[in-house]
């Protein structure tokens, strides 16, 4: 294979700019962003109503806005876990196949750019679009909190909330990479969208049920009760962590609830000297969420690499 001349990044920012302009002018994204903002505002408003009574005693007021739920609404954190994948799928499901459908692919790739620039550009544009929507949302919430509760957040709270924002973006990146992969595999945007939604449904609804059933089924028969129970719990946790939703909720919990000290089962011996309910310092919380964040990042890289290989091997002729 001869070594190719020229930079693979030539034209990248042109693609990013054009794709972002497309996203922000598309009705689809406007509706979804509106939905996210509305539901988030609702959840936050409800949380603020709940928190008003305890304003004086709570050292992590801002963080509780993210995690507090009032029936029948769910918390803002849970809303994001649910809606961010939808936005990401909407951004990515027709990224590649629509270029074939419009018959623009050969025209674009006959320009002096590599395929890398087109694919990476589309991915970055999706990521930046999500980042802008999420950042706006995040600022909106902090503003609402200041306005209604009247207490400025501490530095530590801001760091935790910002880390949570970044983690949400990575979580969105997983779904963006997945939907872009389907848009490369399937020539019909509708097929790609439905497949991505099916995966989303699997992880959001069925995966928790499946993991408990599977762990139950593979519970060891012999040996003592405690070991068997522990094996079952550990297996269920491992299976659950294959889902980006589980990883994301662990990260969210670790960052937004400073009292979280571990995600798995703990023995009494390990709890020696632990002050239950006392918060961890922010550095320790960041260490705690490092493994699930790594899992999410590697999922993004893996899915994107697969998409990249598939796209590079594709025939240009539609």
């Amino acid at each position: 294979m001869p070594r190719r001349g020229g930079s693979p990044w030539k034209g990248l920012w042109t693609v990013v700019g054009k794709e972002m302009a497309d996203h922000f002018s598309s009705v689809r994204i406007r509706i979804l962003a509106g939905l996210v903002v509305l539901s988030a505002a609702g959840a936050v408003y409800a949380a603020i109503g709940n928190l008003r009574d305890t304003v004086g005693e709570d050292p992590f007021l801002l963080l509780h806005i993210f995690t507090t739920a009032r029936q029948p609404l769910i918390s803002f954190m849970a809303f994001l876990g649910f809606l961010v994948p939808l936005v990401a799928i909407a951004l990515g499901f027709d990224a590649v196949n629509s270029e074939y459908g419009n018959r623009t692919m050969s025209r674009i790739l006959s320009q002096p750019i590599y395929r890398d620039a087109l694919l990476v550009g589309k991915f970055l544009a999706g990521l930046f679009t999500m980042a802008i929507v999420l950042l706006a949302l995040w600022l909106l919430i902090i503003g609402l909190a200041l306005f209604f509760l009247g207490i400025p957040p501490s530095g530590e709270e801001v760091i935790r909330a910002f880390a949570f924002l970044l983690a949400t973006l990575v979580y969105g990146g997983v779904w963006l990479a997945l939907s872009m992969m389907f848009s490369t595999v399937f020539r019909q945007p509708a097929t790609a969208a439905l497949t991505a939604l099916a995966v989303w449904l699997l992880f959001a609804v069925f995966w928790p049920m499946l993991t408990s059933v599977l762990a139950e089924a593979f519970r060891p028969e012999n040996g003592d009760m405690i070991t068997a129970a522990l094996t079952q719990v550990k297996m269920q946790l491992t299976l659950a962590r294959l889902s980006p939703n589980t990883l994301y909720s662990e990260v969210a919990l670790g960052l937004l609830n400073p009292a979280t000290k571990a995600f798995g089962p703990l023995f009494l011996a390990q709890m020696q000297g632990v002050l239950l309910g006392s918060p961890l310092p922010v550095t320790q919380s960041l260490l705690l969420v490092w493994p699930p964040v790594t899992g999410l990042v590697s999922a993004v890289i893996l899915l994107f690499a697969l998409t990249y290989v598939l796209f590079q091997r594709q025939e240009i002729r539609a």
Partner: protein
Amino acid sequence: MSAPIEAKGLAKRYGSFTAVEDVSLTIEAGEVYGLLGPNGSGKTTMILMILGLTEASHGDIRVLGLNPLRDPLEVKRRVGYLPDSVGFYGTMTARQNLRYTGRLAGLSGKDLDGRIEAALSRVRLTDVGDSRVNTFSHGMRQRLGLAEVLVKRPSIIILDEPTTGMDPQATQEFLELIGELKAEGNTVLLSSHLLGQVQAVCDRVGLFHRGRVVLEGTVQGIADRIFGGHYRIDVTARGAAAGEALAGIPGVAQVAELGDHRFRLKAKSDIRRDLVQQLSDQKVDLLEMSLVEVSLDEVYNSYFREVAHAA
């Protein structure tokens, strides 16, 4: 300087299917070369290999002296390509579409805007430059595609089936545009399955059949090879024994009577002047006479009849 496009023994296989087999061709600077052949005969695959968008299974190709796989960016910068039934982003205007690809080609600012305006006026789309491409007809899209190629100011222009699906008037206009490009000394590679349309603008043609170039040369040269280099002259003549009189004229190789005083002659050279002289000497009234131009369709049909007979 080497020729703009040089291919040697080029082949492309998809699994067991052979799209292009052992094609060697050279396209000279400033000529309009027609790749002709039915759909699926390997024309588009050939073009994609020239652009480096598809890798050849065998053989060697040089575009402007460069290897399209080793220097794809430089090749694509200097080659303008109008794909078969080109598409645009429907929600963007014509100008926005051109600006996007112009930027991808590394152009910007005033230079790009100037080129876009020049290209749009060239293809007569200036008035609709700010309309969404959604509203464009097929012919307008093809013209916009040509405008995009012109914005790049390429050394080689490749047009894949540019006139397919256009109405006759749009086709005529498009061919006139290609004629203008030719007059300005551009090197153009044109693919088509509609032979009659492109023969007027092509200097040379290559006839594709099942992935091979089966005939190559000027339209007249190919006709000579297929019809044995004969000139064909249609004559309408009235008089006793007009047929015998015609057959007796030196240079006439064959006379076929078509009925109603019409005859078709085959001759080694253009003997119309002699015909007039001889027929008036022999008291045969010459009513009408014309040289039969060879159309590519005829060449084509005749060639494939030969192939079918041979098989």
